[in-house]
Structures are given as structure tokens and as C-alpha cells.
């Protein structure tokens, strides 16, 4: 019965989107983290999604990995900062807050979409169960 597959597929979509939301939250929380050296600065993390072909028709989705953004971290001149290097610079994270907000909205919309698909399938299955009553 392939309506049951819908639960697995939509569930995989939901878990993938929740990974994305988690990473977005972690990026936003660390947007203001600073480090003494540029290579120690926090780098924005983003998930890489991959489709998994099932034996039949549908394909679920999984998170193949998490990549760190290669964008350069910003050097801030803050000589009074306890983590400043000898020249008085601290290195902030390379998180782009705008990008993260857009990412968050997109992830939550996709999540909702999967929830709705699951709800519709559940209703169809329940109706089918009542067939002939």
C-alpha cells in the first residue's frame, strides 16, 4: 500500500528540513562569536540534501552532509577586546544574517508542506479504512 510510503517520504523531508533549521539556528546564534585567529572563527554551516531512490516510485530525502561556508571572516578592530590579537583585531564569524533568515523561512515553508502532505494522506487512509461501513 503505497499511501503508507507517503509517511516515510514526507517524514524524511521533515527531518531534512529540521536539520536545516537546526543549522540555521546555530548559525544565527553564533553570528556574533569572535575568535583571535581567522581560521578559528565560526563558519556558517549549511546542509547538503540528497534524494534516496526507493525500490518503487518515490524518492525520500536525506542530509548527505554539512558544509562550512568558505566566505571570508570579517576582521574587526577592537583593541579592548580580551580576544584581540597583537594588532588589535578580532575575527567575527562569516554568517550572513539575511541569508540565514531567508533560509529559515524556506525551511519552515518546506516543513509545513510536508506536514500537509502527511495530513492529507492520513485522511485518505482513514477514509479508505471506513470503506463499506
Amino acid at each position, binding site marked *: *500500500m*503505497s*499511501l503508507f*510510503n*507517503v509517511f516515510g*517520504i*514526507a517524514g*524524511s*523531508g521533515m527531518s*531534512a*528540513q529540521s536539520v*536545516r533549521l537546526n543549522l540555521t539556528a546555530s548559525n544565527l546564534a553564533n553570528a556574533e562569536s569572535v575568535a583571535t585567529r581567522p581560521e578559528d572563527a565560526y563558519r556558517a554551516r549549511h546542509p*547538503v*540534501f*540528497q*534524494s534516496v531512490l*526507493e525500490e*518503487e*516510485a*518515490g*524518492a*525520500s*530525502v536525506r542530509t548527505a552532509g554539512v558544509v562550512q561556508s568558505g566566505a571570508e571572516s570579517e576582521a574587526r578592530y577592537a583593541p579592548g577586546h580580551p580576544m584581540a590579537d597583537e594588532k588589535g583585531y578580532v575575527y567575527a564569524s562569516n554568517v550572513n544574517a539575511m541569508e540565514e533568515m531567508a533560509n529559515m523561512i*524556506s*525551511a519552515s515553508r*518546506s516543513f509545513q*508542506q*510536508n506536514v500537509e*502532505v502527511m495530513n*492529507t*494522506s492520513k*485522511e*485518505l487512509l482513514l*477514509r*479508505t479504512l471506513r*470503506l*463499506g461501513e
Partner: protein
Amino acid sequence: MSDKLFGIHAQALNLRARRAGLLAANLANADTPNYKARDVDFRSVLGAEAGARDVGMQRTHANHAGAGSGVGGFADVTLKYRVPSQPSLDGNTVDEQVEKGEFASNAVRYMASLQFLERRVSGLIRALREE
């Protein structure tokens, strides 16, 4: 017997359920790079199913299985890739609005087939009742 009783709707229901899985997969992969949205041409698949039903093998024993009586999975050839209206840079061809619309219409049509079956069953039960 059950083929004549329920007509095309039993098959239609099965195909609708499979198509729901396919559309759910498209929606779940809306953010997957290089994923290509797929769908089936419902009319041709159902037509093939109905055609297979008519040209069943001759059965010489009551326990013989009929040809084409079960609805199998989609053959690979019946799965078609959707033509994207707005191609995206990451190679993903899922248009969430289109998929959502197709999923909703698929669900409604599933309900319609179900309703036909329900009426058929309740009519049959009424006919069987001896009151």
C-alpha cells in the same frame, strides 16, 4: 467478479495512491540539488491497466491467476520528468506550487473514486439484506 463489481475504480484508487507517493517525493525533495521532479501520465497508465484487464489469459482452472488482475508498480517507462517552467541554478526542477496543486487534485480524485466504491458497497449490502 470484483472487477465487474467495482469497475475501474479499484484500479484508479491504487494508481492514485501510488501517484500520491510520487508527488510526496517531489515535495520532500523540493530543496535537493539536481533532483528532477517526476510524475505519471495517469490516463495512459490507467488505460494500460484497463486494457490488460480485458485481454486476460484464458483460465482452465479456478485457482489460476488471471493476467493483469493485480496492479503492479509503475514501469519505468511510464514515469516522466516534469518540464520546469522556471529552471533553477541548482538543477532542481520541483515547482512546489505545481506539485502542491497536483497533490491536492490527486487527493480529491482519490476521494471521488472512494465515494464511488462506497456507494457500490452500500448498494450491494442493501441488495443482500432480506428485509
